[in-house]
């Protein structure tokens, strides 16, 4: 029975991916990609990875979806298309891509047995961190360096996006509100945020012991902020506003500070003193959640469009 469900899920995923590629209408393709992201979340549940499922649905489906839909609305009718490839060229590319897929598929089928795993090592040290969710422990304790660098990559991407603002509006606010705000959007933007904020805070808090965590919580909070900005209930802040800059950099800064303190009070860079691990991790997660929320919302909002209010 579950095999049938899995096969149906795989069939849908492949069908949607092909649809995204062959569909002529840009908008229809992006909406198919949104559905693809949601179904992919279900696939992650089947792979026993609920943390990844939440991230995929929130960021891979929702975040990327809204980003692409907004871009499509701006680019409609003026997207510069390149010359389409010849039929023979497409066929050659298709054969090449199929070969890559076949090779990867072969690799999947011939994985080493027994599978190499770090699960016992992760389980062994879990007690020392005071956490119950092994994925959070990997993200914020065993492989904290990855997470720290990732936060900095997100900030670098945001700097890249902001640097595309024209000279005249440098430091100004991005434009998120559409020309005409539909009534239901305003209604949703008034009703949804209280629930969204509670869900976001809950996801952050529960992430220490159960599926959830900073990224998922940050994305939910970012979505709520975007909703309010898109409905025009609160304008987006100037990109140079100190409070925004503090929210963006606060998480990585606290993370780095605790990392360096680790080399004085604990065994080394990014090490936590024994017994204090959990409170420190929760504090870092709280600051990171705010930073992730601010960064993701600003990434979707795009570069400055309006002259700064001075």
């Amino acid at each position, binding site marked *: 029975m579950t095999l049938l469900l899995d096969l149906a899920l795989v069939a849908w995923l492949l069908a949607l991916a092909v649809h995204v590629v062959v569909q002529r209408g840009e908008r229809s393709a992006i909406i198919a990609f949104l559905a693809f992201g949601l179904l992919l979340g279900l696939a992650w549940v089947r792979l026993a990875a609920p943390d990844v499922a939440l991230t995929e649905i929130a960021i891979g489906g929702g975040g990327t979806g809204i980003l692409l839909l907004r871009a499509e609305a701006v680019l409609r009718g003026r*997207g510069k298309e390149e010359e389409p490839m010849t039929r023979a060229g497409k066929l050659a590319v298709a054969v090449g891509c*199929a070969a890559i897929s076949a090779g990867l598929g072969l690799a999947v089928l011939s*994985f080493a047995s027994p599978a190499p795993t770090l699960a016992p090592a992760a389980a062994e040290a879990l007690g020392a961190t005071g956490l119950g969710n092994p994925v959070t422990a990997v993200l914020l304790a*065993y492989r904290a360096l990855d997470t720290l660098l990732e936060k900095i990559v997100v900030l670098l991407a945001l700097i890249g996006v902001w640097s*595309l603002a024209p000279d005249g509006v440098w430091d100004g606010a991005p434009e998120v509100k559409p020309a005409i705000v539909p009534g239901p959007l305003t209604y949703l933007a008034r009703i949804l945020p209280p629930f969204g904020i509670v869900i976001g805070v809950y996801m952050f808090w529960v992430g220490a012991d159960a599926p959830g965590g900073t990224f998922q919580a940050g994305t939910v909070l970012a979505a709520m902020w975007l909703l309010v900005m898109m409905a025009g209930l609160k304008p987006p802040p100037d990109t140079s506003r100190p409070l925004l800059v503090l929210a963006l950099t606060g998480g990585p800064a606290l993370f780095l500070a605790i990392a360096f303190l680790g080399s004085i009070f604990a065994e080394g860079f990014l090490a936590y003193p024994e017994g204090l691990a959990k409170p420190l991790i929760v504090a870092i997660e709280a600051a990171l959640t705010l930073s992730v929320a601010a960064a993701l919302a600003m990434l979707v909002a795009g570069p400055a469009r309006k002259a700064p209010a001075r």
Partner: protein
Amino acid sequence: MTASLSPGALFGLCGAALVGIGLYAIVTHPGLLRRIVGCNILGAGIFLVFGAVARRGGGAGFEADPVPQALVITGIVVAFSASALAVALLKRLSELNVGERNGTAAPTEQRGRL
């Protein structure tokens, strides 16, 4: 037969196919926005293959190896950041193209007309 069709292997194969589909879109599609979508499908496929590795590596009371899972979460966030940067570049590129076509170089004013 049933062993080869465990969820791990099945979604791993699905991921392998998605890599091919995404790559095809990136190489052949004439629209740049769709190529960004293609990149995301390619990434999703790679993550799924990695998820298959995680699923096989379950043990010590966990259904799946938590280390690849955490790396995939990191990867999804980085992929989103890269997409956001690509989309911002694409928007700017099209603004500049429109400005060029109209003989003006005031991209911020172009927006009002759309």
